[in-house]
C-alpha cells in the first residue's frame, strides 16, 4: 500500500516538475520576445523622429519659397480670386436646369465686385 503511494507520489513529482519547467521556459521565451519587440519599437520611434525632422527641414517655408520662385510659374493670389463657398450655391440633386435669375459667380477684376452685373462699378 505504502509502496503504491510512494510510486504514485514519485510519478506525480515527475509530471509536475516537467509541467512546471515547461511553463517556466515558455514564459521566459515570451519575455524575451517582448524585450526584442520593445527594442525594435524604440528604434522605429527614433527612426520616425528622424524622418519627421527631415520632413520639417525639407518643407521649411524658406526652402519652398526659393524652389517655387525658381521652378514654378506661380503668381501671387489676387484678392478677386478669394470668394465664399456659400456663394457657389448648393448642388442640385435632380437634373432640373436652375432658374434664370441665379447668376453663377463670375471672375471679378475688383475685389468682390461683380463685373457683368454693374459695369459702371469698375472705377
Amino acid at each position, binding site marked *: 500500500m505504502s509502496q503504491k503511494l510512494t510510486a504514485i507520489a514519485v510519478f506525480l513529482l515527475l509530471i509536475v516538475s516537467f509541467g512546471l519547467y515547461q511553463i517556466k521556459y515558455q514564459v521566459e521565451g515570451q519575455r524575451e520576445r517582448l524585450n526584442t519587440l520593445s527594442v525594435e519599437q524604440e528604434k522605429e520611434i527614433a527612426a520616425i523622429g528622424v524622418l519627421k525632422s527631415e520632413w520639417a527641414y525639407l518643407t*521649411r517655408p524658406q526652402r519652398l519659397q526659393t524652389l517655387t520662385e525658381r521652378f514654378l510659374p506661380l503668381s501671387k493670389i489676387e484678392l478677386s480670386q478669394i470668394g465664399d463657398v456659400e456663394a457657389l450655391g448648393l448642388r442640385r440633386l435632380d437634373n432640373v436646369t436652375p432658374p434664370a435669375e441665379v447668376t453663377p459667380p463670375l471672375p471679378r477684376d475688383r475685389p468682390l465686385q461683380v463685373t457683368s452685373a454693374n459695369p459702371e462699378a469698375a472705377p
Partner: protein
Amino acid sequence: MSEQTIRLDGTAKRAIEFSRNRLYVTSLVFGVCFLVMAGRVVDLGLSSGGAKNGASAGAIEAFDGRRANIVDRNGIVLATDLVAASLYANPRKVLDPAVAAKKLAAIFPDLSRGYLEAALSDPTPFVWIKRKLTPGQQDAVNRLGIPGLGFEDEIKRVYPQQHLLAHVLGFVDIDNRGRAGVEGRLDTRLTDPAMIDSPLVLSIDSRVQHVLRDELNQAMKKHSALGAAGLILDVQSGEVVAMTSLPDFNANHAAAAMKDPRFVNRATYGVYEMGSTFKTFTVAMALEEGTVALKDGYDATNPIRVARHTINDDHAKARWLSVPEIYMYSSNIATAKMALDAGPELQQSFLKRLHLLEAPEIELLEIGTPHYPEKWRKINLVTVAYGHGIAVSALQLASAVAAVSNDGLYRPATLVARSPDQPVIGERVISEATSRKVQALMRLVVERGTGRGADAEGYLVGGKTGTAEKIENGRYSKKALLSSFVGMFPSDNPRYIVFAMLDEPKGTADTYGFASGGWVAAPVVKRTVLRAAPMLGVKPSDAKSHPMTEELLKLLRPEVRS
C-alpha cells in the same frame, strides 16, 4: 511448536495503535509541508525572474537629456531629439597619437592638431574627442579605422527650421539643459518625464512667421538697417502668431551667436523709445477720461516751450487741429497740449493699466524691463505723450495697442497655443466705446494720414506710424531713426496686430530719401497682411472705411477731404 497468533491486549495494543497514529499524523504533516513547498516552487517558477531585463529598455529611453518636442500650432516640428554619436578615445590603446590627430583634424576643422595630439597622448583611459557628431562625421571617423576610438550614443537637440524661429526657441547646452528662449524658460516642462511624449505646442504659425521674416528681411536689406523686429499678435487671445528679430542665426549653431550683441532679441529684450506710436495711448487716455472729445482739438500753430525744451511738429500744419487731425498728422505740439490737460498722474496710471511700466510675462528668458522717468514732471508728461523719455519693448507696445484697439481688454501675450476650452482672461483698460473711436482713428491714419503705405486692399488695415530719433552720445540724432508701424486689421473688428520696426534704416531712391515709419515700416505691414491674411483665416471685405470714418471725416478741415 504450534504457531501462536499473537494477540495483543490491553497496554500493548494501545501502544502500537498510538504509534501508528503518530506515524499517520507525522506523514500528514510532512505531506502538507511538501505540498506547500511544491506550490511555492510552482509560484517561483512562474513569477518574473530575479534578473531585471532593464538594460534593453530601448535606444532612446536609456539616455538622459531627452526633451519633449516643440511644435507650432499646426504640428510642424520646431525642435526635436535625435540620436547622435559622440566620439571618445582610450588613449592607452591609441597606437600613434600624432598620425591619429592629423587624420581627425581633417574631419573636425574646429579642433586643432595640437589639442588632439595632447588628448590622445593623455594617460587616462577615457577622453571625449568631440560630442554629438553628424552621421557624416561619424562615418568618416569610422572609415579611418583608428584603434582606441569609440562611439557612444547621445541625444542631440535639432532645430529643423534653422533661422526661422531662432530667437523664440533659444537653445540648449551640451547637456541638453535649456539656456535661452522657450527652451530655457520652459525647461522644467520640457524635461518632465510625465510630459516628454506630448509635444509643447506653440502659438506660432510657421508659415505666417516666414512671411513676416521674409518681408522684414527684404526691407532691412533694402534700407541697410542695423536690425529689425516684427510681431503678429492674435488680438482676441493674446497669442503670438509670429515673432521675428533680425539679424537672426541658425538655431542649430546658437550658442556662439547669442553672445553676439547684434543678435539681441529686438522684439522682447530690446527696449526703445518708440516715438509717435505712443500717441495712440495719449489719445485713448484723453478720450476715455473725457478730457477731450473727438470734435475738440488743440492749436498747433506755434511750437511750445516746456522747461527749456522746444516741441516742434515734423509735418507742421501750423493751425488748429481736431483730435482726428492730431492723430492723423501726428502732431507733437497738439499731443503735448492734450497730455498737459490730462496731467501726469492720469498718464502714469493709464500707462500702468496698459502694462507699459513693467516687464511683461512671456515664455522666454529674454525679457526687457522698460525705462521710464523716476519723477514724472511736466517735461516728462509731455515727452512721454509722443513716445520719448520712455523706453518699452516691441512686445509691450503691440500688446498695449491690441488692448486699446480691440474691445478695450488687455490680454497678456503668450507663446503657448491656447487650447479651445481655455477661457481667455482680459483686464478692462478702456471702454468699448473709446476703443471703437481708437479703431476709427487708426483706420484714418492708413486711409488718409501718414500710414498710407500700409493700406492693404480688402483688409481695412488701421495703424500708427512711429519715427523715433535714437539717442547717440547723449543727444537725439536725426540720422539714427527707429522707424516703426503698428497696424491692426481688419479695423472694424480687429483680429490681429501686425508690428514692424526697423533699426536705423536709410532712405532709398523710391522712398525719396525718407526713412520714416510711413515710408519703410508701413509697406512691410501691407505686404505681410496681403500674404498672411489668408493663412490667418481673415476674409477680404469690400469695406473701405470703418463705420465711424464718416463721422471723423466731418472733423477734418475741408482741404484734406478728397
